[in-house]
Structures are given as structure tokens and as C-alpha cells.
């Protein structure tokens, strides 16, 4: 098949069709054998979707080497994939930089789709009584906005960790390159299946999927559960790869406290992703089983407990929000020293604070359930644990301010987005404690206040750092530099508009405006706020559009930037751009501290010895 269809993605889609048909056939066949009516939509859709996804990644070629090994044969040398040109991005690459770009592209695609969903329902919400969408259409778009954004965040994080971590630690690639390819490619059908829910009746539960509502929701619900389950494997295996890589492939002399700070963030994030993610898979699969086989885990009539779902779900979904923000906070810490020309203040404490947030984050999940009807005595302990997370978070903020104090500061686009991240994440963080104390949370839970809080936390902890990182590392990835003019335009379009929107959300939430409502009573007096929020959301989207324009123009005819554009001490900037195929041809040794800006004759790394010949991956 490889000769017939050279492009992995197309092969994948062909096999996906075959796999889906196989899955449907399997279900139908089993039903016939069991003397049941042959056709039933739901099991067919689920099994079809699952086999479709597995056959997809087989078709792409992800399993090829493993199949060879399983039958006792050697796998071929994957040689210089650069010969494939642009085609390498559409097939199974084992190179972390190619995979990083694949992740980035998928992330931006999903981000755009989820953003468009939001723009659509924000138009409806701007006018109470609007008939633009039916209630179920609204609920579906709102739910998909949530989950598709979450998946795009997880994939964007995989993009950065995969692209940047090997470069930062002086390695040629990740320890498990084929696993890396698998982790990326499984996310593609996962996204497809998630979006397919739009055409299968949608679902009206929000991304949290609580039963009993999710147990009786339309077929689209199963596509949501299946899509997320598949995506979870991407997250888990990517994290496994990052952790093993950081443990095993650091350059000589790179002791733990001489690693770039982003690596600490990647470690903390990956510890969570590796472990807790299994619980969202499990909780969703249990609802799938309840729907498909009547297994009443969460059905009170059969003795089940709806709150059990919430415990299982939030045990992942709270730590998940730290997965969302820890890398971005790591990017802030990583980039600040470069643009203020000063060491990261209290590096060790900042490193430890990422770990502390990750570990403490496992202990707070009950704060999503203060009004859920869980046992009373559990509410205070979760309040305490939740408030404690503020301490390591505060350490980061104080360190950032201290890093900037007495620096020598410039304001290119990456720095602007770093500053925006600090400001907006501060709003996210400060709006947190009222949710932590139980009594105040009873007012705020399930209102727009929460929506404002987490959008601030997400934009400050992920979206703005994400753009900062793209502007910062773009020259390293492509040898070109993105337009400063357009970058600043994007900044001024996105940051004020988003901030205003989030503050308005918190305002109407405090006044009692519920979240996840497709419509609202004009007598509440929130019409003006909602209209302004909609306008703000379109301005933010315009900023994203400017980004894409910048991206495409730069790729076409951007300003060349092949050297150390930012004058960074970090090793990846000491080799030419774009980054060579295997990163460092000479062996790297760490001989100093990563952030000793302002100290004369204090190199961070030294290169040794002859160039190696291109070794096989």
C-alpha cells in the first residue's frame, strides 16, 4: 500500500474506513449470533469508531517497525527524512522536531475549530431570546468548545515538550521515538471522533459528562467518550516519553539544578499526565458500559452512585488543569531571564514549586464538588488543600517580579506575551481562593464567575505563553523570524479584549448569572455585559487571525534569522537555525549555570570533540 498511497495520512484514512466497517460488521455479526436484531446504532458506532481509529494509525504506518520486530525481523534505517520534504509531516516520523510540528499544527487546528464554536454561541448569547441555535445545538457547541479546547491544549503542550525538551537537555531525540509517533497519530482520529458527535445528535452535558444525564444523552455522547479515551493515550504516552527522556538523556554535567527551568515544568506536568489521565478514561468508559450494557455504576435504581463518577472524573480533571498551566508557567520562567538579562530569581524554589503544585494538585479534586452532595465532613479538608496550592504558585509570581527587578528589559513580541501571561494568570490565581472556601463557593459554583476564573487561568497559563513560545522558538524551528509589527498587533488585539471579557464574566457570575445556559432572562440586566463579552471575543479572535496571517507570511517570505536571535544562553541557540536533524553534532557538556546573565565569563555549556556521523535513530 505504501507504493500506491505514499502519504501516511491518506493511507490512514483509507484504513480508517476499512476499520470502521470492520467494527460495525463485528458488532452486527455478534448480535446475529446472539439472536438479537442485527442493527443497533450505538454499539456499532462505538466499536466502529474504535476499530476505525486503530486501523487509521496502522494505515499511517505507526505500527510498522513494531510488527517487524514482533515477527523477528529488523526494522529499516529511517534515514534522512528531510529527503521527504513537506511529506514527512503527513506520515509517521520518528524525529521529535517533525512530531513537534505535527502536534503544533493539530493543536492550532483544534484551537481554531473550538474557538469558532465559541464565536457562534457567543453571537447567540449576545441577545437574550435569540433563536440562532436550538438549546441542544447550543449545549453541543458549548460542550465541544470545552473539550476540543482541552484536547488542543494537551496537544499543544505535547508539541512544546516534544520539540523543546530534547534540545534543552542536549539530546538527539526522545528516548522512545516510535512511541512518540504513536502518541501523535492516535490524537488525529481522537479529534475526528470527538467532532463527529456534531453529526450524531450532539450531547448536552458539557465536557464534564455527568451521569445520569450522560447516560441518557444522544449518540453524540458516545463519540465524546470515545474521542476523549483515545486522546488520553496520546497524553499518557507523551508524558512517559518526556519523563524517561529527561531522566536518561541529559547532557554530561547537567545535574538536576542545572537543567533549564522549562524541563522542571515538563517533569511536573508529565508526572500528572502519566498517572491521573487514566481516571478520566476509566470514568468515561464506565458510563459507556452503563449505556451499552446496562451496567449501573452510576444508576441509583440499580444501587449505583452518580457522585462516584464525579470523584473519578475530578481526580483527573483537577490535576489536569495543572497540566494545562505548568508548562506555560515554565515558559514564563524560561523566557524572562532572556529578555531581562538577569538570572531567574530563586531558580531552585521555582523548580520545586512546579513539583509542589503538581503533587498538591492531586489532593484537591473535591473542591469541584462542594455543592454536589458529597459527605459534609469532606468539604473542609478539600478547602484546606486547595488553599495550600496558592503557596507554591505565589513563589512563582514573587520570583518573576524579583527576576525583572534591576534587569535590562526589552519588549519584543515574546516578552509582551510573557508579561500578558503574568498579568492574566494573576487574575486567574486571585479569583481562585473564593472558590476554595466552601461557603463562598456555594455562591460562585456553576456561575459565570467560574468561567471567568478558568479562562483567565487558561489564557495566562497556556494561551499567552503558547504564543510567546511560538514567537520565541520560531526562528529555531524555521530559520525565519515572525513579524514584530503583526506580533504586536496580535498582542494589542488579544490581551485587552480578553481581559475585559474575563472580568465581565466574573462580574455577572458574582451577581448570580448561571453558566452553561443557552439563554437568559433579560430582566436580570446582563444583556449589556453579554453583548460586550461577545464583541470582546471577536476582537480576541481577530488577534488569532492576525497570528495566522503572520505565520503564513513568515513561512512564505519571512525575515531570515539563523543565529542567536535573542542572545540566549540556552544550548539550542548555540547551533545554527533551523535546528540540525539530530540537534547537536558535537557532544555537549554543562559547565555553568543556565541563567548567569550579567556574570562575565560564565558559559553554560561547552561543545566537545569531532562531529559524529549521522547515527541511526
Amino acid at each position, binding site marked *: 500500500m505504501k507504493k500506491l498511497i505514499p502519504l501516511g495520512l491518506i493511507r490512514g484514512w483509507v484504513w480508517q474506513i476499512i476499520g470502521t466497517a470492520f467494527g460495525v460488521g463485528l458488532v452486527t455479526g455478534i448480535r446475529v449470533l446472539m439472536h438479537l436484531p442485527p442493527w443497533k446504532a450505538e454499539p456499532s458506532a462505538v466499536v466502529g469508531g474504535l476499530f476505525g481509529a486503530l486501523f487509521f494509525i496502522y494505515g499511517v504506518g505507526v505500527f510498522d517497525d513494531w510488527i517487524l*520486530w*514482533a*515477527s*523477528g525481523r529488523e526494522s529499516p534505517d529511517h534515514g534522512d527524512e528531510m529527503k521527504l520534504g513537506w511529506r514527512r509531516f503527513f506520515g509517521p516520523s520518528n524525529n521529535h522536531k517533525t512530531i513537534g510540528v505535527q502536534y503544533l499544527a493539530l493543536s492550532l487546528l483544534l484551537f481554531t475549530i473550538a474557538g469558532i464554536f465559541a464565536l457562534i454561541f457567543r453571537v447567540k448569547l449576545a441577545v437574550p431570546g435569540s433563536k440562532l441555535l436550538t438549546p441542544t445545538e447550543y449545549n453541543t457547541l458549548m460542550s465541544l468548545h470545552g473539550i476540543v479546547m482541552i484536547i488542543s491544549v494537551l496537544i499543544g503542550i505535547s508539541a512544546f515538550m516534544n520539540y523543546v525538551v530534547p534540545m534543552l537537555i542536549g539530546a538527539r531525540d526522545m*528516548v*522512545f521515538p516510535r*512511541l512518540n509517533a504513536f502518541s501523535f497519530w492516535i490524537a488525529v482520529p481522537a479529534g475526528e471522533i470527538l467532532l463527529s458527535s456534531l453529526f450524531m445528535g450532539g450531547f448536552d452535558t458539557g465536557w464534564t459528562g455527568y451521569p445520569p444525564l450522560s447516560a441518557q444523552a444522544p449518540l453524540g455522547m458516545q463519540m465524546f467518550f470515545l474521542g476523549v479515551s483515545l486522546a488520553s493515550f496520546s497524553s*499518557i504516552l507523551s508524558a*512517559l516519553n518526556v*519523563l*524517561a527522556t529527561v*531522566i*536518561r*538523556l541529559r547532557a554530561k554535567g547537567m545535574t538536576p539544578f542545572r537543567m533549564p527551568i522549562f524541563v522542571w515544568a515538563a517533569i511536573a506536568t508529565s508526572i500528572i499526565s*502519566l*498517572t*491521573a*489521565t*487514566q*481516571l478520566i*478514561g*476509566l*470514568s468515561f468508559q*464506565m458510563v459507556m*458500559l*452503563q449505556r451499552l*450494557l*446496562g*451496567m*449501573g*455504576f452510576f444508576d441509583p435504581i*440499580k*444501587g*449505583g*452512585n452518580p457522585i*462516584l463518577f464525579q*470523584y*473519578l472524573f475530578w*481526580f483527573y480533571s483537577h490535576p489536569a488543569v495543572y497540566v494545562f498551566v505548568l508548562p506555560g508557567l515554565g515558559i514564563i520562567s524560561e523566557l524572562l531571564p532572556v529578555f531581562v538579562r538577569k538570572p531567574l530569581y530563586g531558580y531552585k524554589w521555582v523548580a520545586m514549586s512546579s513539583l509542589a503544585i503538581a503533587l498538591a494538585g492531586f489532593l484537591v479534586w473535591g473542591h469541584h464538588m462542594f455543592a454536589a452532595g458529597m459527605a459534609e465532613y469532606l468539604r473542609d479538608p478539600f478547602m484546606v488543600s486547595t488553599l495550600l496550592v496558592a503557596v507554591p504558585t505565589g513563589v512563582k509570581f514573587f520570583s518573576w517580579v524579583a527576576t525583572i527587578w534591576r534587569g535590562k528589559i526589552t519588549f519584543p513580541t515574546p516578552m509582551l506575551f510573557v508579561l500578558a501571561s503574568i498579568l492574566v494568570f494573576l487574575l486567574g490565581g486571585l479569583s481562585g481562593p473564593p472558590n476554595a472556601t466552601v461557603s463562598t463557593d456555594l455562591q460562585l459554583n456553576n456561575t459565570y464567575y467560574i468561567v471567568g476564573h478558568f479562562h483567565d487561568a487558561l489564557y495566562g497559563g497556556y494561551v499567552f505563553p503558547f504564543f510567546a513560545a511560538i514567537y520565541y522558538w520560531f526562528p529555531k524551528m524555521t530559520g525565519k523570524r515572525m513579524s514584530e509589527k503583526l506580533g504586536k498587533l496580535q498582542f494589542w488585539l488579544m490581551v485587552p479584549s480578553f481581559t475585559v471579557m474575563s472580568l465581565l464574566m466574573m462580574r455577572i457570575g458574582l451577581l448570580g448569572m448561571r453558566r452553561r445556559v443557552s439563554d437568559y432572562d433579560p430582566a436580570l440586566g446582563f444583556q449589556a455585559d453579554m453583548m460586550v463579552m461577545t464583541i470582546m471575543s471577536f476582537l480576541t479572535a481577530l488577534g488569532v487571525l492576525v497570528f495566522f496571517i503572520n505565520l503564513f507570511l513568515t513561512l512564505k517570505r519571512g525575515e531570515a534569522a539563523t543565529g542567536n536571535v535573542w542572545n540566549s544562553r540556552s544550548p539550542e541557540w548555540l547551533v545554527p537555525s533551523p535546528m540540525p536533524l539530530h540537534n547537536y553534532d558535537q557532544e555537549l557538556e554543562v559547565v555553568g549555570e543556565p541563567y548567569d546573565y550579567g556574570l562575565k565569563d560564565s558559559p553554560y555549556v561547552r561543545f566537545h570533540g569531532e562531529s559524529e556521523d549521522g*547515527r541511526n535513530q
Partner: protein
Amino acid sequence: MVETNKASALRLGMLIFGALAVATAVEFLLALFAYVLPILVVIALIKAGLVMYYYMHINRLFEADPDPDQESFSYKLMTNRIGLWFFMLSDSFIFGGLLVSRFNLLGLTRPDVNQFTGLGVTSLLLISSFFANRAETAMVHGDRKQTTISLVVTILLGLLFLAGVIGIEWRIAPFRPADNVAGAIFYAMTGFHAFHVLTGITFLSIVLGNNLRMRYTSEKHWAVEAAVTYWHFIDVVWIIFYPALYLIGSVH
């Protein structure tokens, strides 16, 4: 170095199996005749610890690298081990979630399942771990023939386990999955575990095939070590699930 230790390595494997067998007999009898919940928990932890230390060699993770060259075989072997353990760590969260669900839904009651088939399938799995360990030990000492035989027995016992759980226990259980929450959690826990047993059998079969093709040596046999370690992991999960489903709590 290698030949003189083979006998003692095999003996150690038998000794550990003996301890596991005794512990299982004790927990079974205690549960039936002298129920003390904390002791059942402790026995399960001891069994798990024995398997993790003596069969899965968890201590190897903390050994220093004999060769610091990141391109050397021994370095990459250690990296692979770390990767496998991370995988098993992650997987154990699913089983942990199921365990939490079992206690949340059923409290200190348990499903009304047959004790003899329970003990039976548990024994099959423990014995299979013995043979898996034997297979790996043989491989370490270069005895391909013994590896083959032991792998075959392990796989057969694994298949018998599946037949016992899915073929027998699922049929004779006094409830269907959709009847009530005891049924739901019983089928879910045994089902997720059985799926892992199936993947373990598949992995072992692939390794068996490659062993017959003489792909492994006493120095380089990572796939054998990996498949066997994964098999032991599945056994450890059952070491916890068995008392959770069969021994702990009173019947509804």
C-alpha cells in the same frame, strides 16, 4: 558466573512461589473461618511485594548504570526498564480507580461469587507467574529450551485463567452485569483484568515465537524480560483484586 547461579536462581523462584502459595492458602482460610480485615490487606501487600521484588526485580531500577555511555546496550536497557515501569505505574491507576469504585459502591459487602472457582483461577495465575519467572531465569542463563517450555506453560495457564474467569465464573455468577451494582463492578473489574491478561498472553506468544527463531541471548533478551515483567504486573493486580472481590466483606 552464569552457570553456577542458575540452580540457585531457579530455587529462589520456587521458594518465592511457595511463599505465595502459602500466603494464598492462609488468606483463603482466614477469610472463610477467621475473618480479620487488616490481616487480609497485609497478606495481599506481602504477596504483591514478593512478586514485585523477586519476580519483577523492581530493585534493578535503582541500580547504577554499569556503562555511562548513553549509546551502550546496557544504558538503553535500563532506559527501557524505566519506560516499562512508568507504563505499569500508569496502568495501575485504572485498577486503582476500579478498586475505589468497588468500595464506594459496595462498601464492606461483597459480590456473592463462588469461592472455589475464585481460588482456582487465582492459583492458575500464581502458578503461571512461577513459570514466567522460570522462563526469564532460564533466558538469563542462556537455556533457550527451558525458556520455550516455561513460556508455553505460562501461556497455557493464562488461557486456562481466561477460560476459568470468562468461561466459568461469568456464567455461574448469580447476577448479570446489568442487574445491579454488584454485578456491574464484578464484571468490570474481572473484565478489565481479563483484557490485560489477553494482551499479556499476546505479548508472551510473540516473545515465544521470537525465541524459537533464536532472537534472544543471555545478554540481550529485553523482550523476554519485558513480557514476563508485564505478566507479573497482571498477577499483582489480581493479588489485590482477588481479596477485594472474593474475600473482603460480607455477602449482601
